[in-house]
């Protein structure tokens, strides 16, 4: 249990290494699945090829889709793809980067399966034994079989327990020949994949490094922003619910508790201060949203009209002058909100 906990801690150190860990686990699962899978060739001329090639191709497709499903970023990607433009431009390079990094990770388990299958050789033996040219291994002293009979005869080669023609053909030599071909295909496949991966990862910096840094930053940003938005919504909902229930109780009981106690009333005793502080933090968490339609507006506009990536510093003037801050929103996004004005007045006791 300890070992497992340490591995989990190590892998969760950051999102990237977590995804790499999932990737590695899937690759190991793929190899283990192959070794525990009981390969049973049908040994019939019409079905051998379909079975052999099916075992080679169908599980990799399944692993590939599973790789996408297990990746957290798939929903982030689709969200970013489908959202309306709003105030924030959509960057296709970011979408391409997220898609390509997900695809690279999802491709590892299928590649492992295909490589292990080809190195083992059973699927090729099953698929091609019936149709391969094995004339070299036939015993020349034996009468030549007709083509159809030969195909049927050769189809039984993978099934050693039902094969009965040891005097017609040297089964070991034929099996070795086909397995050799399968292993050569396996190594070539691995070579091609490695060269492609090498070209993509090692040669890429020659071409697009500056743009790559940008897209990496913004794709990471989108992920973090989504998580922080969820967290902020949760905190807001908590504050909202607390105040709502409090107001409901007040309306039932008929009492009114004064809102927005300021820490100016410091002399009144510690308890009041604590209450004041606590309510202040709830009010802060509400962030000014106190009505259902405001909250609905928040959630609606988050999808339809994301804010511009521009943080404005609130101008704060503490020196005792009345200060007006006009905040007006453009009409194209919030067509059901009128122009809003925020007026703040500060007085100082000089």
């Amino acid at each position: 249990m300890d070992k497992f906990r340490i591995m989990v801690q190590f892998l969760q150190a950051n999102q990237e290494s977590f995804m790499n860990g999932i990737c590695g686990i899937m690759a190991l699962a793929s190899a283990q699945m192959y070794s525990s899978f009981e390969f049973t060739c049908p040994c019939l001329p019409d079905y051998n090829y379909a079975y052999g090639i099916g075992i080679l191709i169908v599980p990799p497709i399944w692993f590939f889709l599973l790789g996408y499903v297990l990746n957290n970023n798939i929903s982030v990607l689709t969200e970013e793809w489908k959202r309306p433009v709003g105030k924030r431009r959509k960057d296709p390079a970011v979408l391409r980067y997220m898609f390509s990094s997900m695809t690279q990770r999802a491709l590892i388990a299928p590649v492992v399966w295909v490589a292990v299958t080809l190195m083992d050789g059973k699927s090729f033996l099953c698929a091609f034994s019936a149709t391969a040219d094995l004339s070299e291994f036939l015993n020349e002293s034996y009468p030549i079989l007709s083509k159809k009979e030969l195909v049927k005869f050769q189809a039984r080669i993978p099934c050693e327990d039902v094969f009965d023609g040891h005097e017609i053909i040297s089964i070991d030599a034929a099996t070795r020949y086909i397995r050799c071909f399968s292993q050569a295909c396996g190594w070539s496949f691995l070579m091609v994949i490695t060269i492609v991966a090498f070209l993509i990862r090692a040669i890429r910096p020659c071409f697009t490094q500056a743009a790559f840094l940008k897209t990496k930053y913004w794709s990471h940003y989108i992920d973090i922003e989504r998580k922080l938005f969820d967290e902020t919504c949760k905190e807001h909902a908590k504050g909202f619910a607390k105040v709502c229930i409090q107001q409901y109780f007040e309306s039932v009981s008929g009492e009114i508790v004064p809102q927005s106690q300021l820490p100016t009333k410091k002399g009144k005793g510690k308890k009041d201060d604590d209450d004041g502080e606590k309510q202040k933090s709830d009010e802060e968490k509400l962030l000014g949203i106190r009505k259902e339609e405001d909250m609905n507006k928040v959630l609606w506009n988050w999808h339809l009209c994301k804010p511009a990536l521009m943080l404005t510093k609130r101008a704060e003037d503490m020196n005792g002058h009345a200060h007006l801050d006009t905040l007006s929103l453009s009409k194209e996004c919030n067509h059901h909100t009128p122009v809003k004005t925020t007026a703040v007045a500060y007085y100082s006791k000089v």
Partner: protein
Amino acid sequence: MDRLKLVLQYFQSNSESISNGICIILSLICVKLYTSFDFNCPCLPQYNKMYSLGVVFVPPIILFLLGVLVNRHTGVLMEEWVKPLGNRTKNPAVVKFLLSSMLQRALLAPMVWILMTLLDGKCFICAFSMNVDPKYFTGIPNSTGLELIKIMAKVPCKEDVIFKNNSFWKAVSRYVRCYSQAIGWSILLFFIFLGAMGRVLKPCFNHATFLQTRYWSNYLDIEQKLFDETCVPHARNFARKCVVQFFESMQEDVTVRMALSNTLRPSTIHNEYEEKEEEQLHGITRQDQVDHLLQTWYECKPELDVTNMAYKPKVCITWEDHNGKALFSEV
């Protein structure tokens, strides 16, 4: 478990030891691959050599490319090589140092594979059994009517019917394996000797330059890592501010009248958390500023001179009333 933690911590302590650790892991994977690979000599004259030489040379190429891929220094090297000049001079010695250290590490796993195939001997027997002159060995099965070369090609497949109750194949296999192991040990000895000579003689040539290049290549690696690490909290704070601002922009009209108490100092209104956030944003608050920052980082890296940053004066604020009398000052 403590041991495993210690080992992991040691390997993560610096980038050199991470690279060494990955190198060793790749070699272990290579050994495991070789032992689990089912060597299947075709035992046919026209295919034997092709198959066995393929098994000896193709996996090392794959392992070499993998070794280059997983090495962190590859990225640093490529970036340093292709980046524009900017404010910094390019040092070709650093590029050469990074390249040589990367190649040395990437070459370990292929060498392990080649040595294992040679010391094991199966590939050699498969490739060269046909080249052995059979007249030195007794007991050749000549009753089968096959050509000599075909018989010799079948020697690696000892279970074949023609070799039943016959020790001819054992003798030939031993002979070829002997050659194979001799070549394997010679290659190993040669490389160890080369490595030892290199390490012993290296300090004799340009040691001071070597120290410099090693320092600056390590610096480049660390700088790249720190830049990536700095981008992460920046993105987090940027996102937090953006989300909060978005919420606040949805507010309706609010009028607040507050009495400004003299206990309410400006410095206490900003809580410590917000100050830390402002620091981490470093004044970068717009998308085009972030884009410009990332573009400039690549195209025109800053000078290696942090004197101004280390001795930056602190900004102190003084509040004065309309008569110029100081109400509150941080000086």
